[in-house]
């Protein structure tokens, strides 16, 4: 009975291998490589905005809707502020909202999913019922209503988005936890007296980590989209310039009819690129982790069962 003599911590799943899996998937798929490179680049520029922004965020450097030129490659906005500067600072706020709201939603969704999946029975029924109602009620209108009542501020936006986005995470995590808790090593850990907390954190969570990461990345994309939408409807924090706010300002101050395309095309395109890179990473991870997508009996190029980590050409 060597197992019983060991420390509970030593009876462990091949955790490092699973953790590496995320990295392997990203490395071997061109779409995921492109996605993460672009995302990192944008994050980097946003972080360094105070250092590398060419002009001040509130500095009027030329005429209203000034044309693009050598000194202002993307022109000026309705207040004569340099667009490149605006985009850098805007991406900063958008990313903060995206990451913070996702953190909130991961905490809520992860907790609900783990509790429902791990404990089952009544806990599962009650929590999943609540989740079902939240899924049935359209979230953007609910966000609008709550944001309108609470009043505009960055904190409110983060909370509104975070507290309404957790449902899909909860669902995904619950399904995974349900299957993981039945595995032999979890039962073994339980039989030698490991507590719930220990089992959840040391045995269950590491196993579902890759899927949780995929879900996180996809949630960031939705959170960024929702921030843009709320800002566009005038519910954003008036004192903070996010990418959504830049689009709203351009729309409200007639950038379209003035022909100032440079004030409205870049911010939206930047949001689209942000969401796209998150989607690419998330999709690649999900595709690789979902075993059902690995076989295709009928396709132009015949596919055999392929290993978990696909080779480059089969991206997406």
């Amino acid at each position: 009975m060597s197992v019983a003599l060991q420390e509970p911590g030593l009876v462990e799943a091949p955790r490092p291998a699973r953790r590496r899996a995320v990295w392997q998937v990203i490395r071997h798929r061109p779409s995921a490589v492109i996605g993460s490179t672009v995302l990192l680049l944008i994050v980097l520029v946003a972080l360094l905005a105070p250092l590398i922004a060419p002009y001040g965020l509130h500095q009027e450097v030329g005429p209203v809707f000034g044309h693009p030129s050598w000194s202002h490659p993307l022109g000026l906005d309705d207040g004569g502020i340099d667009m490149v500067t605006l985009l850098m600072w805007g991406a900063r706020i958008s990313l903060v909202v995206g990451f913070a709201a996702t953190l909130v939603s991961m905490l809520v969704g992860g907790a609900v999913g783990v509790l429902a999946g791990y404990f089952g029975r009544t806990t599962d029924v009650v929590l999943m019922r609540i989740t079902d109602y939240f899924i049935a009620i359209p979230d953007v209108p609910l966000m609008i209503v709550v944001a309108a009542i609470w009043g505009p501020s960055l904190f409110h936006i983060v909370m509104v988005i975070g507290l309404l986005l957790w449902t899909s995470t909860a669902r995904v995590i619950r399904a995974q936890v349900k299957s993981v808790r039945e595995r032999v090593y979890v039962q073994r850990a339980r039989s030698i007296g490991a507590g719930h907390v220990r089992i959840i954190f040391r045995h269950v969570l590491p196993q579902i980590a890759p899927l949780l990461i995929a879900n996180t990345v996809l949630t960031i994309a939705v959170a960024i989209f929702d921030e843009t939408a709320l800002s566009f409807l005038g519910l954003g924090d008036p004192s903070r310039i996010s990418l959504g706010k830049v689009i709203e300002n351009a729309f409200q101050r007639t950038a379209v009819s003035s022909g100032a395309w440079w004030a409205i095309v870049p911010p939206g395109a930047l949001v689209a690129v942000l969401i796209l890179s998150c989607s690419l990473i998330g999709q690649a991870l999900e595709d690789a982790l979902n075993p059902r997508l690995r076989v295709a009996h009928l396709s132009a190029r015949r596919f055999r069962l392929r290993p978990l980590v696909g080779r480059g050409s089969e991206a997406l």
Partner: protein
Amino acid sequence: MRGADYVIKRTGFAVVTVFVAVTLNFLLFRLAPGSAVSNLSRVPHATQETRLALKRQFGLDKSKPEQYVIFLRELARGNLGVSFENSQPVIDNLKTDLANTLPMVLLGTVFSIVLGTLTGVIAAWRRGTAVEHVTVTSALGFYSMPTHWLALMLVILFAGWFPSGGRVDDFLINPTWFQHVKDVLYHMTLPALTLALVLYGQYTLIVRSAMLETLGEDYILTARAKGLRPWTIVRRHALRNALLPISTLIALSLGYIVAGAILIETVFSWPGIGRAVYRAVLERDYPMLQGAFLVLTLSVVFFNLVADLVYFKLDPRITT
């Protein structure tokens, strides 16, 4: 009868969801701090009588639990209060708005379902080829664009060819029925196209992954071994089974359609329910916001129920 249980269970869930939504509606608005939000009778420019009448109707001087019961009663009668903005009953405003929204949303949705299914099937069938990469990349591209931004891009691109705002041409005096329909359709083009493009991206991705799952099933291998032509296998064996998850996922995208409608109607000044939400937020017209939120929630719940029942009809395996 097969699965009477199922129908009752789904309908029951829908009814309870409606109840939850209505309660949420009450809690959000009436328990919010500040009487501007919670006091339905503060209609600007209204006569003293109107205000008193509203106060009496909704029992605004009574306790909150009592107000809740009264709220439910008035809701059952179709009374949602009076709009702060135009002093009309909220329910009348909503009826007009909904009638304007439905054709536009329907046109865009149907168009994108047809197109999205087609491209999704092709992408799954041609897995690993350039065709798939182009389709998936374009779908992801449209899926990633902020809806309102895409709408603005279409306005910039098609300026002059299609009207960029409104539902009818105000200068068209005494149009015949045919002229009127033509005019509305003309104005509807860009909003419906925006919705169609946004949904197209999503549906292509959904259909593709549903098809990929069915293409992995053993009966596809059997059909292939029988020597059926690929297109026959796709149509008769794969797509028919893939339609099941697709129908559920399309139902789940209803929330997305609603969000899209709000943003699109705001850009194109389309006088529908989505724009009503925007105006209500802008003017702090809380009764109207409450009503519009309720209508949007109810329609999503209703269409979800419809999708559940369609699923039941399509899939003979469901019995409970």
